[in-house]
């Protein structure tokens, strides 16, 4: 018998999400040449039903703990649907279907596995599965190359980006691995100057992670995944051991790898050159066109934007998956962009608080790693869109068009909610 929980704050926030999604959709539809048609409300209405269904599901299952993550993730997904309607309305129904699948994946992750800590027992299985998935796009027949990056799996017309699933598997593996070995890694007696030298067997995984990251950069030509992969590992290593030097060594390895890659591989050098000189004569109408148009959109937005549906974000090629942040900033301005970033900030802050209070080291590292994925992804893509760092193929979590990303991000939310639920159960809080 499961006690039903009352999740009032969550319910209250979802009403605001519903209002936000429907208003956004109406604004976009009304600005179209064809004018507003009532049937266009079907998509936001369906989304609202999905969001409330998830709330009812959590309450009926008696899930306790956090009530903030579901509304924030729902708000971001709603903004994503509004932007797909605005930027690529032919993909809208597809994105809504993916949202439905993502909701199913969320519910499944709440139910399975029954005991979340059991995940740590199969850590080498997760590691093997993760590495296989990571290198799977390199295989013939099923691997696909899109826009120069070989990061897709394809069967018929359905494509899937395995990296998205890999990041969650890796966080589970890192959390389990570091829970077991963090004391050996942190309390090593031998030091070379200020640098701790752990016994060789424990260094192997660190070097192996770096090597795998380099393979991804060289053979799959995916800078974003490389950055994310190493970033997650280094952050979790630091959280588990408190040793700054591991992080510094990792960053140094990344810099060395990046420097070598810049001089040896054309695709890395091209990305960096676009980033440094997007307005150069031979770049701005060619390889740098996308970034330059994105920057114009950002500038055009001003403080309050052109108004939803009133800007010209369609000038940016592939705007719906690569440059949603710039499109959003153009139409709702600096004010809207700051609000969007604040939503991510709240999400990550909440995730880190869940990590701090989790009852076991594995759950702490798991929650921290999952929150860090969202933080780093947001930083890398928003930084790329605004020319703070070179542009990479990372997607803006929950908002950018894309099925695999949406599904895995919702599974990530479910895992965070479960960690919070376990904490509440241990402590006897609602």
């Amino acid at each position, binding site marked *: 018998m499961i006690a039903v929980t009352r999740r009032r704050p969550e319910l209250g926030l979802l009403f605001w999400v519903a209002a936000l999604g429907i208003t956004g959709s109406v604004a976009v539809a009304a600005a179209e040449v064809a004018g507003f048609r009532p049937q266009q409300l079907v998509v936001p209405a369906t989304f609202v039903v999905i969001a409330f269904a998830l709330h009812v599901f959590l309450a009926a299952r008696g899930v306790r703990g956090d009530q903030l993550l579901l509304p924030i993730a729902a708000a971001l997904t709603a903004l994503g649907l509004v932007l797909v309607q605005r930027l690529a309305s032919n993909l809208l129904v597809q994105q809504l279907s993916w949202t439905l699948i993502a909701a199913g994946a969320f519910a499944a992750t709440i139910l399975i596995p029954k005991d979340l800590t059991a995940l740590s027992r199969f850590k080498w299985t997760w590691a093997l599965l993760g590495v296989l998935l990571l290198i799977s796009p390199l295989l013939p027949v099923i691997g696909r190359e899109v826009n120069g990056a070989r990061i897709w799996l394809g069967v018929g017309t359905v494509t899937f980006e395995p990296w998205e699933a890999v990041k969650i598997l890796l966080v589970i593996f890192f959390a389990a691995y570091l829970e077991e070995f963090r004391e050996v890694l942190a309390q090593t007696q031998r030091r070379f100057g200020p640098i701790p030298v752990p016994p060789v067997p424990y260094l192997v995984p660190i070097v192996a992670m770096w090597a795998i990251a380099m393979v991804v950069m060289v053979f799959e030509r995916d800078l974003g995944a490389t950055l994310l992969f190493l970033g997650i590992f280094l952050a979790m290593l630091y959280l588990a051991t408190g040793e700054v030097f591991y992080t510094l060594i990792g960053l140094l390895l990344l810099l060395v790898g990046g420097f070598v890659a810049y001089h040896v591989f054309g695709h890395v050098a091209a990305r960096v050159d676009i980033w440094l000189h997007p307005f150069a004569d031979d770049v701005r109408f060619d390889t740098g066109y996308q970034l330059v148009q994105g920057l114009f959109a950002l500038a055009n937005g001003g403080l309050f934007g052109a108004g939803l549906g009133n800007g010209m974000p369609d000038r940016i090629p592939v705007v719906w998956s690569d440059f949603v942040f710039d499109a959003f900033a153009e139409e709702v301005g600096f004010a809207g962009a700051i*609000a969007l970033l604040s939503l991510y900030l709240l999400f990550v802050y909440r995730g880190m608080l869940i990590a701090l209070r989790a009852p*076991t080291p594995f759950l702490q590292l798991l929650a921290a790693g999952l929150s860090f994925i969202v933080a780093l992804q947001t930083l890398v893509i928003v930084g790329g869109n605004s020319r703070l760092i070179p542009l990479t193929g990372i997607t803006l979590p929950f908002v950018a068009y894309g099925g695999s990303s949406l599904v895995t991000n919702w599974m990530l939310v479910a895992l965070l909610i479960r960690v919070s639920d376990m904490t509440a159960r241990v*402590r006897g809080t609602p």
Partner: protein
Amino acid sequence: MEITFAVLLWAVRIGFLVLLYLFLLRAFGVLHRALAAERVSDNAVRALGTLIVERSAGHSPRVGERFSLRASTSIGRDAGNDVPLTDEAASARHAVLELRDGEWWIEDLGSTNGTLVNGTRIEHAERLRFGDELAIGRIALRLEKGAG
């Protein structure tokens, strides 16, 4: 007609931005209240509990040794347990001590020789209070408040 439509359109656009900020404010409010509630429970749970060895058969564990408890603490003969017991009467994975709703519960994991709470063999999961004595084989442990 045209002008009314344009005014409406702008009202919807501005409304969208306003709603975005209202949602953000509400979310901050929810987080703020949740944090206040969690801080109270932090103080209540800070000192989880400790097991103190009262009687022992050999050198491991020694009498007087203290084990700080985790939210889920495993007890048994295997060295991998949180509380390892070297007593042939203990099963490899003997029992588990768990915090549920802020209370300690002991559950026997189907051990051969059973677990005793204050001298009585337990059948189901049983609530353990501070000061209660737990006996497995020739080893006795007492649950005390606070971290080791």
